[in-house]
């Protein structure tokens, strides 16, 4: 499954819930305000890095750039563009948006 999270991890619990309930080997795509979680020094950084052992973590590049965060992405997080977003949706049998 592809999990899509769009809310800031320091404002909502959706990332925590996603990481708690995503099965091993799933993909997690961070978009919009959720991309802050994938940046160095963020409160969620340790959680993301721990999760990256069992999940594939992606972040949307245009959303990182729009937040001044393009140069701060954590190691182990794959940055994708909109084409990559489409590929992820197409590659997975199902997807879940954590609103």
């Amino acid at each position, binding site marked *: 499954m592809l999990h899509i999270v*769009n809310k*800031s991890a320091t404002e909502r619990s959706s990332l925590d819930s996603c990481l708690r309930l995503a099965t091993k080997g799933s993909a997690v795509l961070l978009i919009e305000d959720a991309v*802050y979680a994938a940046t*160095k020094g963020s409160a969620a950084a340790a959680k993301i890095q721990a999760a990256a052992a069992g999940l594939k973590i992606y972040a949307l590049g245009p959303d990182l750039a729009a*937040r001044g965060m*393009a140069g701060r992405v954590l190691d182990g997080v794959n940055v994708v563009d909109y084409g990559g977003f489409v590929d992820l949706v197409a590659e997975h049998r199902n997807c879940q948006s954590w609103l």
Partner: protein
Amino acid sequence: MSDMDMEDDGSGIVKKFMFLNRKAPHGTVYALEGLEVVLITAAFDQDVSLVFTDDGVYQLMKGIDTKGIEVKDFSKTYRALDGYDIEKLYVDQSSLDARGLTEDDLIVDVTVLSDDEMKNLMDEQDVVISF
């Protein structure tokens, strides 16, 4: 301003206004709308403090490039605030620390406050408006 004006409409009264920004930019419209309201308020010659805390500190990041998401980049507007006599900008150290940020990451000069300093600043306001 003449005494007559003040008697007519009370416009000589200056209150302490705090605009409290706690949301990241772009994901919601709060940051942009808050900034618009601050610019409007500048016309009323009030004692304005602008506070960025929690995810609000993200509004002030350097290096924002919104071309890819096709929305307005309003981050440079923060640098124009002193032209509107809005010179009191504050962030709190706790919010910076929780996000791995320092003052150098921010697009404008701000005063960095401790939690104790921030709570006192909030407490002394006449009006607090939250975005």
